[in-house]
């Protein structure tokens, strides 16, 4: 209800729509469109190697009855969760250094440098890592020279993890550094003033205050690692069967895109659920 005339209301709505409408329209057309098609596609059938619109549950029943589906699902989930946690741990000292030990002007430069590789061809960096870790590569040679085995590091979880780190480190670094940088300095001084030792300040002041940023870092690392298949192929050697790998494998049964659609809907469901839980946890207030 409003006291304004229809003309004025229309003019206001038009101005509002000018800003509010473009993105939803674009996404409704070019994102929701494909997504709905994807959902529809999970009910299609394949006849003579041809994807045919249909209403068939065969793709769903096929995928859900795969005996290794859930082991793959949990392996995929677990590996990316471990990677996300490890990347976060790996990044933490660096973020801490950038947030507390470097001047703000320098911090911006460091953040830029941390972010730069993120936008450099990811494929190239994975290929380079393959060269780095493979038989006779830099790292095995280095290990060999200090008396270790010198065997190739590829097709191991270490290699896969480095691939995940290559993808996710920059994002995690930026999120962590911003989170730590926003921790209230007076609160920290107050704690010190009250006799808290540095370890306590870290545990009871810094970490809780930075929790949203730190958990978002874990979440992003998880999201990116979960959907990752390039390093799973080139560094993991395809021996870690994850959902993205399963997805490409399924297609090879003769244009089985409906099955791939089912797997990706499962993946999306898992990701959305995880995101919701993490975000809710990250922004949960103490004391309700």
């Amino acid at each position, binding site marked *: *209800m*409003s*006291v*304004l*005339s229809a*003309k*004025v209301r229309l003019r206001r709505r038009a101005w509002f729509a000018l800003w509010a409408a473009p993105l939803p329209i674009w996404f409704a057309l070019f994102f929701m469109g494909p997504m709905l098609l994807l959902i529809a596609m999970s009910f299609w059938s394949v006849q003579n190697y041809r994807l045919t619109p249909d209403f068939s549950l065969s793709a769903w029943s096929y995928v859900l009855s795969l005996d290794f589906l859930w082991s793959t699902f949990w392996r995929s989930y677990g590996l990316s969760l471990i990677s996300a946690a490890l990347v976060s741990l790996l990044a933490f000292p660096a973020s801490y250094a950038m947030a507390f030990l470097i001047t703000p002007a320098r911090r911006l430069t460091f953040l830029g440098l941390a972010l730069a590789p993120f936008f450099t061809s990811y494929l190239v960096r994975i290929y380079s890592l393959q060269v780095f870790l493979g038989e006779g590569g830099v790292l095995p040679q280095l290990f060999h020279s200090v008396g270790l085995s010198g065997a190739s590091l590829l097709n191991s979880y270490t290699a896969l993890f480095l691939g995940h780190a290559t993808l996710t480190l920059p994002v995690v670094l930026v999120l962590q550094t911003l989170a730590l940088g926003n921790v209230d300095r007076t609160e920290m001084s107050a704690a010190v003033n009250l006799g808290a030792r540095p370890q306590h300040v870290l545990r009871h002041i810094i970490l809780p205050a930075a929790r949203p940023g730190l958990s978002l870092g874990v979440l992003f690392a998880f999201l990116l690692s979960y959907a990752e298949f390039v390093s799973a192929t080139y560094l993991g050697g395809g021996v870690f069967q994850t959902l993205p790998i399963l997805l490409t494998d399924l297609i090879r049964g003769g244009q089985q895109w409906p099955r791939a659609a089912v797997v990706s809907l499962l993946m999306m469901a898992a990701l959305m659920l995880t995101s919701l839980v993490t975000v809710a946890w990250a922004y949960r207030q103490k004391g309700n």
Partner: protein
Amino acid sequence: MTQPLLELHNLNKSYGTFEAVKDIDLTVDTGEFLAIMGPSGCGKTTTLRMMAGLEEPTRGDIRLEGQQINDLPVWQRETPLVWQNLALFPYMTVRENVEFGLRMKKVPGPERQQRCAEWLERLGIAGFADRNVAKLSGGQRQRVALARSLVLQPKVLLLDEPLSALDAHMSIRMQGELKRLQRELGITFVYVTHSHSEAFSLADRVVIMNAGRIEQLGTPQDIFLRPKSRFVAQFVGGISLFSGMLKTTREGKVGIDSADGLLQIADPASVQTGTKCDLAVRADRINVTTQPGWGTNEVPCTLMSEEFAGAVVNLHLETAAGTGIVAQLQQRDLERLSARAGQQVYASWHPEDGVLLGVTALKAAA
């Protein structure tokens, strides 16, 4: 009868189920200095913003010089606002800030510069014209904000707690200047504040708002001397309140039968006995003695604390029934009293100094 400048008719604003402003009727005359006062969340700023066109009323009319302006968008209203945080544009110099409105109104260059210069001069900030607004002191920023609005020669200037960011000293200085400017220019000011001293010292009329409604509208004296409700009395402060039942004694005296005994009042004609009502007594009308027997309405109480406020002292007393009483004494009266906290004292006042609250409301209801 002259046309009122600004009229609000039955103005309402709700956000969902929350009613921020309820049935406001208000007229503002040309050249008047009107203050709207109330606790935070009472709807005073919302009312002001509706005048400026920053909020759109849910119901009701706003008229400027008799013309309904509900439909007029903000930028066509010519009701400039001085913001609580000033909202000076950080990417512009003082001059650019002041010229901003003129540019928007497409005032030609020479006239714009001349008017801008005139106002910079008038507010004593010509020397800072090309400085970045962030590099000014609080008082200077205040003047820029005023100049920015006044340069538009508005019929009415809206001010939203404009002095709240200043320190006490600067605030008092700016109050004086505001008053002077308003007198000189003859512009209508609508001034929102939560400070009594600002409202009472500046305004011709004061509106007290509570929970979206107007509680009382009147001159500062009216409100100070004759608060209409318990709320106004409490909000204005320095008033002691007693509640009880209106009663006629066997001797024919009329008073309030309160927990602190029967308190006499002077003018009972307008009320019926048997109704519940509140009695307000202003602090400067209360007499404090160490011995009883000084006045008509006398209540024994305990001296709780003293509060120095310059030349006067506020004594906080508490009766046996737990009613709080404030009494304002001159410094030398206090010395004469020579009482200490915790000591038994007597508060007394003349029946003429007691004001019955909520009477009109009762009459209307009856």
